[in-house]
């Protein structure tokens, strides 16, 4: 139902066409006004981001990781923002789930260092070239040993029960619960 | 012997009590400037009682305790030297340089105690306190030099007597300059706002004071009270003419009147410092050093040179 209502945003189309010329390996669509979306293969991400930076996408807002358990892939979304064009761009890449490995984009966007560490800490995505990847950060040592991560296959609730030894509390349903 | 002991006891109690009142005044005046109600005037006394009555105390070694005792002892010693109106135990030996040194020694004692705790904040606090001390030394030195040269003597008592005849020191231009410089120096000696980088609460959690708790902090409160009293008394004596009243017949009335006059002058000095403290933000340490080595030094040096002509 998203397609009918989509009013064509000429300026976005033009930006996407300009970027796609420079990066043929990617596909780009305009989701809606001020929202562009690009799909880039994992190994070409650095070149794409370099061209994006050159063409007006000054800011890298966030690197979010999405865990597609069924497809066995982890999706990294580089959220860019261009002040000159006044638009967001979601650059998506897919990595195999078991050993997710990609090269760092620190030299293009220096801020990426923290976001990459965050993704590594919770989604075990290794970014080659980021010096501070192994540095102890948010997770406490006890959690790190247990292997806490935000991946879907990790039973978070079980871990919380074991950690805080509050067994009875979680079995009740919404109706009867014990403070 | 008994007479001096009684006088000393009186001076000590009077100084501590008035010192606490001064701390109360500072807190109330600052509160009033912030349009707040502010604590009762006897609040510092309550704080000290609470601190002294703490049930468990810690120590980091002998020097940690001895430093505090030394600071309090030196301050008590300093108070004894400064002439308090007609009362004065060691008034005859009250020498300008001796008193200036005695007013700086508590800072050394506290720094020794703080550093022996091995706390990094105490280390940074001590470093800043030393640099502030280094910074205020130049204007302080020139102010003392100006005073000594103008009156030709170092004894505080003789200076007070000379001021009765020649009028207050601040009426003579060279000593006015010295008084202004000395007042800026007082700002740092009180540890008030513009120059209290050494005990900056947010930045290095009270600097040297971070490790003092319980009775050590209580002793330091007493020391701060006596020090406030001593410094304002010293300023009042050497610049504002001291409290020598001979109008009444009986000596008891004279002494009381003298103390009252002194009290008014001391409160005046205190209020200047408090107002300045309430308004100005905090200087960083090299800004403070550069400031002290520029304007107050020039003023004080000018005063010293003019005084010596």
């Amino acid at each position: 139902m998203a397609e009918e209502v989509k009013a064509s945003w000429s300026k976005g189309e033009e930006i996407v066409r300009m970027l796609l010329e420079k990066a043929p390996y990617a596909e780009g669509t305009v989701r809606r006004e001020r929202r562009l979306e690009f799909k880039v293969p994992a190994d070409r991400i650095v070149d794409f981001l370099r061209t994006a930076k050159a063409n007006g996408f000054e800011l890298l807002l966030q690197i979010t990781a999405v865990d597609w358990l069924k497809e066995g892939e982890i999706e990294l979304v580089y959220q860019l923002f261009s002040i000159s064009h006044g638009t967001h761009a979601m650059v998506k890449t897919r990595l195999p789930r078991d050993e997710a490995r990609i090269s760092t984009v620190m030299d293009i966007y220096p801020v990426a260092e923290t976001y990459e560490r965050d993704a590594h800490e919770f989604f075990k995505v290794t970014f080659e070239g980021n010096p501070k990847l192994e540095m102890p950060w948010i997770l406490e040592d006890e959690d790190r040993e247990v292997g806490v991560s935000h991946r879907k296959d990790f039973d978070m609730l079980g871990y919380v029960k074991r950690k805080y030894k509050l067994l009875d509390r979680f079995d009740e349903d919404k109706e009867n619960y014990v403070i | 012997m008994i007479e001096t002991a009684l006088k000393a006891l009186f001076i000590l109690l009077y100084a501590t009590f008035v010192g606490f009142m001064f701390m109360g005044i500072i807190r109330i005046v600052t509160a009033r400037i912030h349009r707040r109600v502010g604590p009762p005037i006897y609040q510092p006394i309550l704080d000290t009682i609470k601190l002294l009555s703490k049930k468990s105390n810690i120590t980091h070694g002998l020097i940690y305790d001895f430093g505090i005792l030394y600071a309090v002892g030196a301050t008590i010693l300093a108070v004894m030297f400064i002439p308090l109106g007609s009362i004065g135990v060691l008034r005859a030996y009250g020498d300008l340089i001796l008193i200036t040194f005695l007013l700086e020694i508590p800072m050394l004692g506290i720094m020794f105690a703080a550093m022996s705790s091995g706390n990094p904040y105490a280390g940074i606090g001590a470093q800043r306190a030393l640099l502030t001390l280094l910074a205020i030394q130049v204007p302080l030195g020139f102010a003392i030099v100006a005073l000594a040269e103008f009156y030709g003597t170092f004894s505080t008592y003789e200076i007070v007597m000379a001021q009765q005849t020649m009028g207050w020191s601040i009426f003579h231009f060279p000593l006015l300059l010295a008084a202004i410089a000395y007042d800026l120096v007082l700002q740092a000696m009180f540890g008030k706002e513009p120059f209290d980088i050494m005990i900056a609460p947010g930045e290095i959690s009270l600097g040297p004071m971070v490790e003092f708790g319980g009775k050590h902090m209580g002793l330091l409160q007493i020391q701060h009270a006596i020090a406030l009293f001593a410094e304002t008394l010293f300023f009042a004596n050497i610049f504002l003419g001291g409290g020598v009243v001979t109008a009444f017949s009986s000596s008891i009335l004279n002494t009381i009147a003298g103390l009252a006059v002194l009290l008014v002058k001391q409160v005046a000095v205190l209020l200047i410092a408090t107002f300045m403290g309430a308004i100005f933000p905090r200087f960083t340490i090299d800004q403070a050093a550069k400031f002290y080595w520029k304007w107050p030094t020039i003023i004080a040096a000018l005063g010293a040179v003019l005084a010596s002509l």
Partner: protein
Amino acid sequence: MVDWRLYEPLINFARKRSMWIVAFCTGCGGIEMPPLMTSRYDLERFGMMPNPAPRMADLFLITGYVTPKTLKRIIITYEMQPDPKYVLAHGSCPLNGGIYWDAYNAIKHLDKYIPVDVAIAGCMPRPEAVMDGIKKIMDLIETGKADGWKRYKENYEYYKKNQDELFGEGWREKTARRWIPWLMGREKKREEE
């Protein structure tokens, strides 16, 4: 060695009227503290003064959810405070984990780890509620019933068991040395280059 019982009322009055707060704001309640100090609510009337160093503070305000990482710091700071010390827990998170009831990184019962004297309900209580809490704790001190610190000292093993259960044995030394291996590694790497 001196028997102070005779002066107990005066000392309690002094303790009541000059509580110094440890400037240690955990969780989301930290921003509630400044209004208490400003001219509208002015806690200084009661002689309460924020004080960064735990060694000389009495009142420890736990304002908001407590993560294990913060709890370690809270325990260390709490133990550094000299004895008659009181803990004021703000909001529902320290009581039962509040909205983070199922989060791996929020403490469910603060009381298991450090004794709480007065707990103020509300997902960040308004200043008036905090003032009531403070009034309550001042009454407790007045009557000498604010004995959180005595409870901590007497059954210290219980508290220690809970703490070790959560953080593992010798957690203080481990946390202190947390960064050293990584730093050594980087030092070695830099030497190799």
